[in-house]
């Protein structure tokens, strides 16, 4: 039975040896030589060092294109013209599926075409040496950002390739990203990844790990996101990870977002072992964006303002072209600079928001309830606990595409725009907390003169892209919409 225990060294070795044959580049990986490469890097490329010693939120975009030269050019642009403090390399979807053959085709096609045939950088196909070329070519530390349920080979190649931060986790890269992977399977795979990071860490090369906080990006109640962060943090810590960046995706309500980030940091420090350095990352709005760059800049602006107040260690920025597709480098840099301007203008201001403490207390109480349920469901073991809790629906994520989650929880905004829970499913919350959610949503239903319903949820899903925070009924039919074939 899979439990929350450290993977033995020989197991790590055995699995690594097996994975090596999954794709040609696996054979290039040599741990000792990789350590030497990392040691050759300047401190300014040490991800954990840079992140943990910063005295203001660091900015990081998302970015990945198929070919190496273009990826270097893209990241250099974001570093120089976007003033990014930390760089990303976003991996393509085929690699995320471990379909290296398809990724190879996409890479070849992209090399022969002006268009990008992959939605990211196929790092496994590029292999260790090309990853190092990338790391060498840039000045800032680079993180692997992906969404891969089984990221073992990706971790082997990219960590040997000089990356010092690796996003994801067994829940956060399962529940929102896949349909059929079981949690037992992804946890087992991520124990390997985390253990590998631990092995580097023990050799003095700290690998930063970053569970993916936004989950489905769509109206995720803070307590659910934080619970997943704590569990993934605990699992990673067991495997020897010592630098953990817990994530949270903006919901758009200033008070709730600041409260959630404070709760995340404080609970992270409470729950995780002392030897782990906990930092936080704030993702600018991860749900549907407005199909208009000017309005999108407004959403990004609110993200920057929120970051200035909450002061997370890192901010993942969005671009004004988020709605339409992978952004141009100019738009990507634009999102960075809009965010920077807001943070720099606001960070020294003493902004003391009423109501944060109450909201933070509610989030913490709710998170404790969910964590308690997880521990109970596993009889004290987090691995079994989280598998069982998701299975029973005691822990759940709204809009989860994965069969591993019930996906019964439905969120909606209250009259103040804070994300509350409308349909609890079997979520392990005490009645008094459910009562608070119900009464806030009841208020809203009264304000709008309609019943709480899936329609309200759907309106909230569309609200920000329609230019509002709360999906109030508008009355008008608004059939305008998009360019379609509706003749």
């Amino acid at each position, binding site marked *: 039975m899979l439990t929350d225990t450290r993977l033995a060294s020989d197991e790590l070795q055995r699995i690594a040896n097996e994975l090596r044959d999954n794709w040609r580049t696996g054979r290039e990986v040599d741990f000792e030589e990789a350590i030497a490469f990392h040691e050759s890097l300047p401190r300014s490329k040490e991800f954990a060092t840079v992140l943990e010693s910063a005295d203001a939120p660091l900015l990081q975009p998302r970015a990945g294109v198929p070919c190496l030269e273009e990826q270097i050019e893209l990241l250099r642009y974001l570093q120089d013209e976007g003033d990014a403090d930390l760089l990303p390399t976003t991996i393509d979807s085929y690699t*995320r599926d471990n379909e290296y053959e398809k990724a190879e085709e996409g890479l070849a096609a992209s090399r022969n075409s002006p268009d*990008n045939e992959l939605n990211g950088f196929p790092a496994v196909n590029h292999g260790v040496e090309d990853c190092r070329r990338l790391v060498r070519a840039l000045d800032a530390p680079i993180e692997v950002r992906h969404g891969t349920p089984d990221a073992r080979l990706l971790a082997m190649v990219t960590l040997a390739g000089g990356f010092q931060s690796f996003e994801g986790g067994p829940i956060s890269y399962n529940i929102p990203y896949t349909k059929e992977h079981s949690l037992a399977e992804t946890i087992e795979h991520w124990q390997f990844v985390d253990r590998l990071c631990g092995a580097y860490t023990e050799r003095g090369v700290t690998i930063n790990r970053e569970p993916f906080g936004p989950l489905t990006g769509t109206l995720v109640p803070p307590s659910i996101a934080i619970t997943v962060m704590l569990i993934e943090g605990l699992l990673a810590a067991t495997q020897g990870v010592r630098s953990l960046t817990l994530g949270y995706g903006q919901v758009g309500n200033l008070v709730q977002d600041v409260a959630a980030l404070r709760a995340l940091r404080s609970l992270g420090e409470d729950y995780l072992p002392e030897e782990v350095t906990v930092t936080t990352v704030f993702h600018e709005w991860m749900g*549907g964006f407005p199909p208009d760059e000017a309005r999108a800049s407004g959403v990004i602006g609110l993200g920057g303002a929120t970051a200035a107040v909450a002061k997370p260690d890192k901010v993942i920025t969005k671009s004004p072209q988020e709605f339409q597709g992978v952004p141009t480098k100019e738009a990507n840099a634009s999102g960075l600079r809009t965010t920077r301007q807001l943070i720099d203008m606001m960070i020294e201001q003493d902004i003391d928001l009423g109501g944060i403490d109450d909201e933070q207390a509610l989030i913490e109480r709710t998170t404790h309830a969910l964590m308690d349920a997880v521990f109970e469901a596993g009889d004290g073991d987090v691995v079994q606990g989280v598998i069982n809790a998701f299975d029973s629906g005691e822990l759940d994520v709204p809009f989860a595409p994965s069969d591993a989650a019930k996906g019964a929880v439905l969120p909606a905004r209250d009259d103040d725009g804070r994300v509350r829970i409308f349909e609890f499913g079997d979520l392990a919350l005490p009645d008094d907390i459910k009562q608070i959610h119900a009464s806030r949503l009841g208020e809203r239903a009264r304000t709008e003169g309609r019943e709480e319903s899936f329609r309200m949820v759907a309106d909230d899903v569309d609200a920000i892209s329609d230019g509002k925070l709360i999906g109030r009924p508008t009355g008008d039919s608004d*059939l305008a919409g998009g360019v*379609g074939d*509706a003749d």
Partner: protein
Amino acid sequence: MPETVILGVIGSDAHVVGITILEQALSAAGFEVENLGVQSSQEEFVEAAKAEDAGAVLVSSLYGHARQDCEGFHERLDEAGLDVLTYVGGNLAVGQDDFESTRERFREMGFDRVFDAETDPEEAIASLQRDLQLTTTEPEAVRVDS
């Protein structure tokens, strides 16, 4: 008897929110919806269309690999002897595409209609009703927020 439509996200794409909204709107408008969920293969679409004797197949793709994922789809439908209405929609290309050329491309691949990500469920429903020559139900039923 209500018309059955097959709905799903193709390839390894996991963007589920759009089809969740679409499913709800189509059902509210009176369609029988078979929602395959995310990461559905071409086979799954074809089999569902056959099994349900569907009037239309609605393929969703957001993550940018739609072209690759839909390649050969209509050949497969033909092989299965299905002459079903096909729609595709979402963010169909990687990057900041010009939608007109994207639409052209998917039309050539055999889709009857191609929709961008700004499409409201109401537009899809109106098109379905027209293409399937359904007697328009009460106007209230067409609206989702009714």
